[in-house]
């Protein structure tokens, strides 16, 4: 085994192969930075170019790309609050909060160092586990997958922070959203409203960008100042501190990297939830995390970043050992396997062991190169946070739009982006935790699927399998422990009774609307076919009840206005809120709502213009209009930015990704105009 590992190292260390690896890394970083464009799109793009290469170079190229997208995606997550891929959603919470405090450099550098260690540790684990890989994986059946997903859902109790009811309601709603589309067993259409877009279910990226990216951008537009208001730390000092932070928390890095490898190896989990798993894990195990997480704690960056780079190694496990792709991008790697005449399975761990080891080396080296490149650049990147909003916002927003669109290449993506943008912003303003919703959204479908398989195959006896028992007990502890602790605390400290003055506020409207929406969805679910109805009904009724309890709790436990506004109370309420908080300092609620409406008005305008003249010209016009109308930026800034951004968009989305653009009014009326891209 050691021989094979060293052989593989010398094979990969040949100059031309390293060149391919670095090429993959550079592309992977760029793709990671672009919101919505993930490793999947990148590998799809590269796959045809690898046909002519020898297998080791081909895998170095592809894995180099796959391994570092979750290093690059940290940059927009920290600097703009826009997750670059699904793997950096959790990084946004504390990373972006740090950037707002002027610590972007520290956050980025802590992220890179933990990404690098996490990625290398993941590769190391994979290398070590090769002899036991197949037996262990063969032990993991549908019941075990189900138990892992249930365990994931139990993290909702941590990620809800101190608003447990709202968290439960959000998670339930997330699960309901995951059930939209053709039911995996009967094929019955659930909540598709007759639209073929929803046939395959809501795609992840528009939802994630809507929930996390748009609210940040919206608040950015409302504040009308640079992201970082505090004096920026001297960048070099910040970066040194970030690296020290990562090293000081090496235990956390190791734990999260192992977690990332394991989660990555479970098909269906992977990068979409691993960051939340790690974040929840850190929030649960670190002392005092309840008070600091979500408000710029560097450990809230280190945990998800060390985990998400380790998932690539994890995802390689089922791909190599069984030919079952551990993630969407691994499905493409599987294609490369077959093209190069390699058959996933036992041979990869025996006669083709050197190829397997060369892949592991590729991942490890890619992580080192990737973090190195980013580290060298992060000083410059951190400065982006100090720019005026009108300089960055329109470009970032255009790219978010295109990123959301490139997934399914459908208008539905943009509607979903907008709808979840509004939902996310309202949730953020009203302090409803968003992470539980995301967790429910990703895990809900998996739970339903494997619950069905497990009970059908084993009836209830699946509960008795040893791994299932252990994992489920773990989940029960995670759920119950905070409840018990809170109960004990309450019994010990009998403070002065709070006086409440029940009453309705305008903000209760949101809970009310959610109740109506979920109620309508439940009533629609009654007409689903037998097999397709059970899950939606159970979750729907649960969510309905949770929402009513939230509303009742809000209305009944309302503090008198003067106490609510006092500083200590506000501070107290923030503690343990595991999500970013809108801080509209000195702005009246009227202004906030007005400016929020203007922001979403811009988005509507963008979409209307896109229907008229196509996406690429729209990006150009939008950037100019936004910069001129919002802040009268001088033309000598406006034109280069608009031209540069449009050209970039043209090359990436039109030339490289070959997106089929939807028909436009202009193109239909004047067919010659179709000569322009995207018209």
């Amino acid at each position, binding site marked *: 085994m050691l021989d094979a590992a060293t052989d593989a190292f010398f094979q990969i260390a040949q100059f031309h192969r390293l060149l391919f690896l670095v090429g993959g890394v550079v592309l992977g970083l760029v793709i990671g930075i672009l919101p919505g464009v993930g490793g*999947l799109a990148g*590998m*799809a793009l590269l*796959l*045809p170019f690898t*046909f002519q290469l020898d297998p080791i170079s081909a895998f170095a190229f592809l894995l180099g790309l796959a391994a570092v997208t979750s290093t690059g995606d940290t940059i927009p997550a920290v600097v703009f609050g826009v997750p670059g891929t699904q793997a950096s959603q959790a990084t946004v919470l504390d990373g972006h909060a740090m950037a707002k405090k002027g610590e972007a450099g520290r956050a980025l550098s802590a992220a890179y160092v933990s990404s690098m260690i996490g990625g290398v540790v993941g590769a190391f684990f994979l290398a070590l586990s090769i002899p036991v890989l197949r037996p262990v994986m*063969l*032990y993991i*059946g*549908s019941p075990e997958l189900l138990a892992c997903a249930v365990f994931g859902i139990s993290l909702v109790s941590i990620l809800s922070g101190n608003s447990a009811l709202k968290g439960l309601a959000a998670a339930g709603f997330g699960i309901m959203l995951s059930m939209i589309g*053709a*039911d*995996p*067993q*009967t*094929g019955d*259409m659930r909540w598709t409203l007759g639209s*073929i*877009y929803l*046939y*395959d279910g809501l795609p992840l990226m528009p939802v994630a960008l809507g929930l996390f990216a748009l609210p940040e951008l919206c608040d950015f537009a409302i504040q009308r100042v640079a992201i970082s208001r505090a004096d920026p730390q001297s960048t070099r000092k910040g970066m040194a501190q970030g690296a020290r932070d990562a090293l000081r928390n090496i235990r956390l890095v190791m734990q999260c990297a192992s977690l990332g490898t394991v989660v990555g190896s479970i*098909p*269906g989990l992977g990068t979409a939830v691993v960051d939340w798993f790690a974040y929840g894990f850190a929030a649960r195990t670190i002392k005092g995390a309840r008070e600091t997480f979500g408000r710029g704690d560097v450990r809230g960056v280190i945990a998800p970043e060390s985990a998400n780079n380790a998932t690539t190694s994890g995802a390689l496990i*089922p791909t190599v050992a*069984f*030919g*079952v*792709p551990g993630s*969407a991008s691994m*499905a*493409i790697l*599987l*294609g490369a396997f*077959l*093209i190069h*005449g390699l*058959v*996933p*399975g036992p041979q990869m761990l025996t006669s083709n062991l050197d190829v397997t080891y060369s892949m592991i080396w590729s991942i490890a080296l890619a992580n080192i190169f990737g973090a190195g490149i980013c580290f060298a650049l992060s000083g410059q990147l951190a400065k982006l946070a100090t720019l005026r909003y009108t300089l960055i916002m329109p470009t970032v927003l255009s790219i978010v739009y295109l990123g959301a669109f490139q997934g*399914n*290449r*459908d208008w539905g993506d943009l509607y979903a982006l907008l709808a979840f943008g509004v939902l996310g912003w309202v949730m953020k303003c009203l302090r409803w935790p968003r992470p539980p919703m995301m967790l429910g959204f990703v895990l809900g479908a998996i739970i339903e*699927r*494997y619950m*069905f*398989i497990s009970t*059908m*195959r084993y009836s209830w006896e699946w509960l008795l399998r040893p791994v299932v028992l252990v994992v489920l007990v773990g989940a029960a502890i995670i759920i119950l422990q905070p409840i018990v602790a809170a109960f004990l605390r309450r019994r010990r400290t009998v403070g002065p009774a709070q006086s409440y003055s029940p009453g309705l506020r305008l903000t209760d409207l949101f809970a009310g609307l959610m109740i109506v929406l979920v109620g309508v969805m439940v009533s629609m679910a009654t007409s689903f076919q037998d097999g397709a109805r059970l899950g939606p009904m159970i979750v729907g009724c649960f969510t309905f009840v949770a929402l009513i309890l939230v509303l009742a709790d809000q209305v009944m436990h309302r503090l008198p206005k003067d106490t609510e506004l006092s500083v200590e109370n506000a501070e107290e309420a923030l503690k343990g809120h595991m999500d970013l908080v809108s801080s509209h300092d000195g702005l009246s609620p009227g202004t906030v709502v007005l400016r929020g409406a203007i922001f979403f008005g811009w988005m509507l305008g963008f979409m209307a213009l896109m*229907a008229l003249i196509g996406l690429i010209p729209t990006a150009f016009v939008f950037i100019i209009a936004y910069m001129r109308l919002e802040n009268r930026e001088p033309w000598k800034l406006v034109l280069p930015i608009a031209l540069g951004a449009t050209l970039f968009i043209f090359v990436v989305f039109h030339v490289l990704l*070959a*997106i*089929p653009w939807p*028909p436009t*009014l202009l193109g*239909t*009326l004047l*067919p010659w105009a179709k000569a322009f891209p995207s018209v």
Partner: protein
Amino acid sequence: MKLRKLLGMAALATTLAGPAALQAQTVEEFYSGKTVNLYIGYSVGGGYDTYARLLAAHIGKHIPGNPDVVPINMPGAGSLRLMNWLAEAAPKDGTAFGAVARAVPFEPLLGNEAASFDAKEMNFIGNINAETSLCAVNADTGITSVDQMKEQEVMMGGTGAASDPNQQSNILNEALGTKMRIIDGYPGGNDIVLAMERGEVSGRCGWSWSTIQATRADWVTDGTVNLLLQIARKPHPDLPDVPLASDLAETPQAKSLISFIVAPQEMGRPYVAPPGVPEDRVRALRDAFDATMEDPDFLAAAKETGVSITPSTGAELKEIVEEVYAADPETVERVIQIVR
């Protein structure tokens, strides 16, 4: 909706203004300097995508005027979205055609309301590989023949009501009296195979012979699995000893039920152009397709990629579709009940 209507009217106006100019043009004149888009109803990386990219790389030089052929992915609803789009919205001048799932042309017949196209109106261009689908079980079940399957219940993996593994198992249960019990809901075929390996299920249907060869050839040679029957029009040359499903049917009704699962296999990897494309261009595309299937460069690339090539012509595909649509309504009703 209003906007769409407006767009439709505008499109109509432009097509009405154009035909005189179009007719004067030869196919070669039309295609030279143009780009033909080959739309793929799936995302990158799967079988349909691999075949389509292979075709896109070679068919251009066989179309008169040598247009560029660009593969474009338009995933969604198991390629149903693409088929609807080809029927309704795609340009009908011969610059767009698509790769769709082999079973999609039959969706309207089987009562899928989301399928809004008329399969008989579509212009089928050709199929790269007629598939042979198999039912196989783990050898440790002791089952070696279909007759045993009629006595003994076997757990077979499924990937959703409309998928090949489910439809084949369900139809065979009805037509042959086998007792396959479907454990349903696996995300994909690979996942069923893994479940077979760990003993969670005992077998599966809807397993292409080409996939078995590429990924689990050793299971067949070392006797880990038993191949019980094949679903195809004629036996695959590699598999002379595996019975054909239709040969086992004892009644005409059983035979006609089985023809519903055979037809998609014959469609294989179909390519479809929108309805209403000028006839001479459809002919040009079909000829180019057939020529590509014999192009040594194409065949060499296919060999390198590891995909098998057993083509059929567009006219043959059209025949298959018309045959299935001509089935008597009772059988269709029966099939709908079984598979939905």
